[in-house]
């Protein structure tokens, strides 16, 4: 045995052995990297599929077809009482004026069949639009005005090519006469394809062409406002108490376990609690954002407490010690040092909790917020629904145009969520302090 032997191998053999094992190690590392890369690629491709699916369906849903009609705004017929009040305009003859205008647009005066077809071709909300237009511009009365009205959802689907002209007439949603009128409108250049104002400024409607998300969006905002104003102060206060002030004993341990358990409770349970406590016991009305907000606050509370506690724990003890060392009281340490430093973490937790609350429908089912609500809520006590509920309801209606409106609403909800998450990141970046 000479000195330059290693584990009974000659130097050459040892080098070979090491090189071989090294090669294998590198190969293994490469394989591991590739696996990681593949996982990321897979996740990304799912995201891409999801987004292209939603965007390809949803973007067309942001647009819809309008028809342009010259309406004779005869005051005596539109506003019989002559005071431009809502009641007077409602009792007026807006619908007949629009029908006459659409008859004139195809150059016909009479014809029962044509009238019947036309009545179903312009959106049933056209009279509301006309009334609103007259209310905000009274000077147009007794003149002839060119106004754009949404076409009925069946016509919209036809113009998009979802209803095939070649299908036999009896299998089609629209008859030959209607198609003929659409052709004449198109030839006269009266049809236009524009960004849908109904989608953003309209409320829930059973007429797909008029349906919009404004009511649900405001409902969501009202509900979240209640939710954050309850959950944030309560959650932060609870976290500070548990982390800084509470004695460490069996009771606080029990509370801690329960908070963690609460975070895992299915959200529908909170809805049942909301029903029995707020609606049945306190006699609050159903379907209002106040109750919805409280229920969602209870649901997000554990999330906020847990993340706030983590943020407080992340504040280095040296800062507390230094403050105490120069004579600060316990309260001064907490309010002057710990909370400002923990705030970014607390806010991130809160915003993530809010984003979760924004997407919830299950807890709202029991308290009547999963409902068809047309009137736009004006306050915390008005019946309201929220965005995800609106999406859920639209997805189930039989009319075809609702499919695109559903995807368009999903885009709005996603944009909302992304904004909230971006705000969370921006806040953290801005307030974060490193030590």
């Amino acid at each position, binding site marked *: 045995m000479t000195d330059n032997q290693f584990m009974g191998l000659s130097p050459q053999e040892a080098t070979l052995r090491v090189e071989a094992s090294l090669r294998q190690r590198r190969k293994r590392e490469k394989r591991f990297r590739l696996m990681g890369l593949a996982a990321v690629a897979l996740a990304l491709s799912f995201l891409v599929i999801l987004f292209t699916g939603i965007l390809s369906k949803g973007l067309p849903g942001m647009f819809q077809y309008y028809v342009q009609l010259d309406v004779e705004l005869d005051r005596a017929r539109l506003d019989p009482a002559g005071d431009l009040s*809502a*009641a007077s305009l*409602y009792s007026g003859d807006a619908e007949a004026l629009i029908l006459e205008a659409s008859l004139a647009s195809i150059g016909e005066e009479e014809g029962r069949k044509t009238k019947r077809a036309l009545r*179903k071709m312009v959106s*049933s909300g056209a009279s*509301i639009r006309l009334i609103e237009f007259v209310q905000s511009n009274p000077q147009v009365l007794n003149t002839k005005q060119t106004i754009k009205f949404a076409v009925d959802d069946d016509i919209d689907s036809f113009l998009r090519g979802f*209803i*095939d002209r070649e*299908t036999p007439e009896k*299998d*089609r*949603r629209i008859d030959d006469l209607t198609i003929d009128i659409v052709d004449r409108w198109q030839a006269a250049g009266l049809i236009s394809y524009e960004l849908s104002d109904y989608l953003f400024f309209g409320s829930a*409607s*059973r*007429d797909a062409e008029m349906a919009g998300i404004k009511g649900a969006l405001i409902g969501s905002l009202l509900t979240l406002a*209640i939710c954050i*104003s*309850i959950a*944030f*102060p*309560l959650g*932060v206060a609870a976290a500070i108490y548990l982390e800084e002030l509470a004695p460490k004993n069996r009771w606080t341990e029990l509370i801690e376990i329960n908070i963690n358990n609460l975070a895992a409770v299915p959200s529908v349970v909170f809805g049942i609690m909301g029903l029995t406590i707020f*609606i*049945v016991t*306190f*006699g*609050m*009305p*159903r*379907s209002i954002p*106040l109750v919805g907000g*409280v229920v969602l606050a209870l649901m997000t509370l554990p999330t906020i407490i847990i993340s706030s506690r983590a943020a407080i724990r992340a504040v280095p003890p040296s800062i507390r010690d230094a403050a105490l060392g120069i004579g600060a009281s316990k309260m001064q340490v907490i*309010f002057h040092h710990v*909370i400002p430093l923990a*705030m970014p973490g607390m806010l991130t937790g809160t915003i993530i909790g809010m984003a979760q609350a924004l997407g919830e429908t299950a807890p709202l*089912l029991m308290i*009547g917020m*999963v*409902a*068809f*609500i*047309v*009137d736009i809520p004006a306050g*915390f*006590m008005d*019946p309201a629904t929220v965005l995800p509920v609106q999406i859920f*309801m639209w*997805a*189930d*209606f*039989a*009319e*075809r145009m609702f*499919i695109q409106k559903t995807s368009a609403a999903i885009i709005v909800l996603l944009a909302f969520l992304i904004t909230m998450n971006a705000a969370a990141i921006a806040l953290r970046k801005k307030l974060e302090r490193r030590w």
Partner: protein
Amino acid sequence: MILRLAKATTTITVAALLCTPAMARDNVSIAGSSTVLPFATIVAERLGRNPAFNTPVVESGGSSVGKKGVCDGIGTEFIDIGNASSRMKTGELEYCDANGVKLTEIKVGYDGIVVANSKNAPQLKISRSDLGKALTAKVAVNGELVDNPFKTWSDVNPALPNIAIRVYGPPTTSGTRASFAEIINEKAFCGKDSEMKAALAAAGQKAKTCRAMRTDGAYIEAGEQDNLIVQKLQEDSETFGIFGFSYLDQNSDSLQGAQLDGVEPTFEAIADGSYKASRALYFYVKHQHIGVVPGIQEYMNEWLKHWDEDGILADAGMIPMPEAERDEMTARINELPVLTADALK
């Protein structure tokens, strides 16, 4: 700063919560069947266009939620009107009586239940009895009740196509499912088929046993989303789906309804009763709330304007009642007779 803000908001919220008394409601509150919902919402929206009234709030939940919810009690925290796609049972009415709730029953129209498939495949022509035989969980084989053994439609009846039985349909919570099981499985198949009757008697079972649908993959529950079933059928031409007539009506260019006993599921055939798979749609209105919550009477009157053959409800797929029945219901809306157990028998 943030803390002061937080303090202020908490104070406000707590104050708001404490100062909330049991308050009056100024919108009609409706809940119940998801089959009635598309029509009830149309009527509600039309009423809401009148500036004198708020738009009624219409919640979903299913027929049982409608019938139970309206009977839960008197007071504005409870709903005013319950929608249902199946008639109230005497047991459900007893719950109402126990809570002191007085109701009037209004029938608003009919909904056809269709079995449909893609237009790319041949139309199914089937008898109701065979349809029940294909989908009931337990059938008679050699005089004994066994798990349904039929794999293909031609196993049920050699005249039917030789493709696997695969039918998408609603889950147990659905009124459509309950009606289908009652009309097709229980009445048309178990109530008529002599072999089945004998086997049921031998096993000591009632015809109600037949309401169970197959669970071996021939009948597939597709959730309450009928649009999902429609999509499935458009993609796979060998499958069938069970849903309400309005979905067939909206997709008549790509889907076709199966003939039941030689009758096509058309608007006219459902309306005149020759197409047998249909059920009535109801709402139940609570007397004690009329005059307390504004708009209930007007909501009922709004139905009258839209429920005939040319109305917007027919356009949305609801099958109107014959004129005599409409007149009867109009009288009920005006006179509001109290629903009694005798009337339900």
